[in-house]
């Protein structure tokens, strides 16, 4: 059986693994032959927004404050 973790704990694990994904993404763009390094700041910004939204989905107390930003 798959042990069910709490929602908050699951979201925190996802947020915790996000830097690795962002690093992979940035590394891929840095090495890409198509000259797409200019996209890196945009990617970091978008991913950061994604991480914040993921956090908002997990921590209900924070959600109203985070959503109000958008």
């Amino acid at each position, binding site marked *: 059986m798959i042990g069910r973790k709490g929602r908050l704990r*699951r979201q925190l694990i996802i947020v915790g693994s996000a830097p690795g994904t962002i690093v992979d*993404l940035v590394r891929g763009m840095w090495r890409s032959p198509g000259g797409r390094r200019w996209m890196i700041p945009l990617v970091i910004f978008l991913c950061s927004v994604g991480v914040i939204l993921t956090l908002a989905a997990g921590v209900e107390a924070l959600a109203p404050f985070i959503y109000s930003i958008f």
Partner: protein
Amino acid sequence: MKILGISSFYHDAAAALLIDGLPVAAVQEERLSRRKNDAGFPVRAIEWCLGQAALEPQELDAVIFYERPALKFDRVLMTLLRGFPHSWRAFPKAMNNMLGEKLWVRGVIAAQLAVSARRVHFTDHHLSHAAAAFLTAPTESAAILTADGVGEWATLTLGRGRKKAGGATTIDLMREVRFPHSLGLFYSAFTAYLGFKVNEGEYKVMGLAAYGKPRWAREMRRILQRTDDGAFALDLAYFDYHRAVDAAYSKAFIDLFGPPRDHFEPIDLSTALGQHYADIAASAQLVLEEVIVDIATSLHRETGLADLCFGGGVALNGVANARILREAGFDRLFVPSAPGDAGCALGAALWADRILFDRPHRDCPDHPFWGPAVVSDDLARLAAEDGFPFARLSAAERIDQVVEAIASGEIVGWMEGATEFGPRALGHRSILADPGNAAMRAWLNRDIKFRESFRPFAPVVPADQAETYFELPPGGARLGRFMSGVFPVRPQWRGKLAAVTHVDGTARVQVLDRGMAPGLHALLIAYGQRRGMPILLNTSFNLAGDPIVTSVAEGYSTFRRAGMDMLVADDVMVRRQRARQEHVLEEVA
């Protein structure tokens, strides 16, 4: 080594478990969640696969996801930026879609399964397709072709693979065609235009094509052009999928082909408009075939190999597959039972075992039955609860009674052993009926499966007698093993196989090897002795819009709702009592 393969988040999620290089379980999430083409994270499928091997997630050596989410995000972002300002409406939706869950797959898997993120690996989408096609096929060396809508960037890849039992495995994808140029998305645009659901209704387009004439082929060739390097390019002015989230084709497309079909309106082939849609389907089908056959022919010329392994959603197009086999020069064409994204779960797990962890190849069992098995006691219990008489039968009694029922025009639900992995019912979750009765097709479409009247049904025939009834090219029996090819019915048999012969005289035949489904094979032989032809109509055991049934309870529910006459689950048989049912209805009235 225990490896779990996962595909999810786009369409048709699935999980597959590999232990010491061999599959032990594989199932699509839809079969357990009962939501057609369920794309959500396949928790039920994973749980079932682990349960089959009595494993806890923490005991897995690796979990492999079938594609690279970061590269996919890269493609989505790049496409939207290139399409600016036309894509501005799509941008927030696409970002919301990607950044919510799809980009953080490593974390999602780690969180859901409570495994270390370090054990989560990724492979390329088309490498998963290639592995699913090549590593499950009984060949040591083959050319590889994959084609679908889109993976990360690739939409079609060409390569070659080599493997040997106990030895090393190599898969070398040599070239690729990149998004937005895609055979799968070309076909999907016409699927949407013809009023069918994208990623689900493509086989309806293929069925409809047989009713039309390719009058629009010249226009299609203008849209799907060949390039000097042997690949193809779409004229993107006719498409919108690269700049919109919910649109496949553009205004120029409508200007060229006319207004799209309203999906609430049935296709009436006796009207000019109905015939127009059939002609469009025939033209799209023809041009797709021309391109894919040409690419496969070049691949054969380049590799000089006798076998081709074909994966990806386009490999579900049985008409194109048959043309590849006939015309591209390959002796054998292998299409796995699940060539679409669900099969990538198994492909990714096999790729991880053979290539990522460099373990020796082991030949996979050549069958599609990797899902949950029938529990016949459940049928006995359900029937008893409902007051339906049921019987436990020996194998011989069961065959006698089913043959008798089908021969007298009854429709039988047939459940046996483990469920199939992939979209086809290959004899373990099937509705069986008389293939000779022309009225059967209309009846099944209208009253049993509740689907469009133009859609054909497939026959199943023992392998050693297939050529008597069907015009199979060399290698055709292999392609028909998982119902992956459409072949002509021999003219002298078309009248006697009226329920399974499509309007163009073809059938998507399943060529059944005795070893793959011995129960159904014995039934075919017995039916042949009774009626002179060992062929049955075999359609998937589900109603329109539902996934194929998995458990006996689902089979029983479908049996009750669909007005079938008999349900068989391994050794238990339930028969509908028409007189009793009518009596009950009278009382209710």
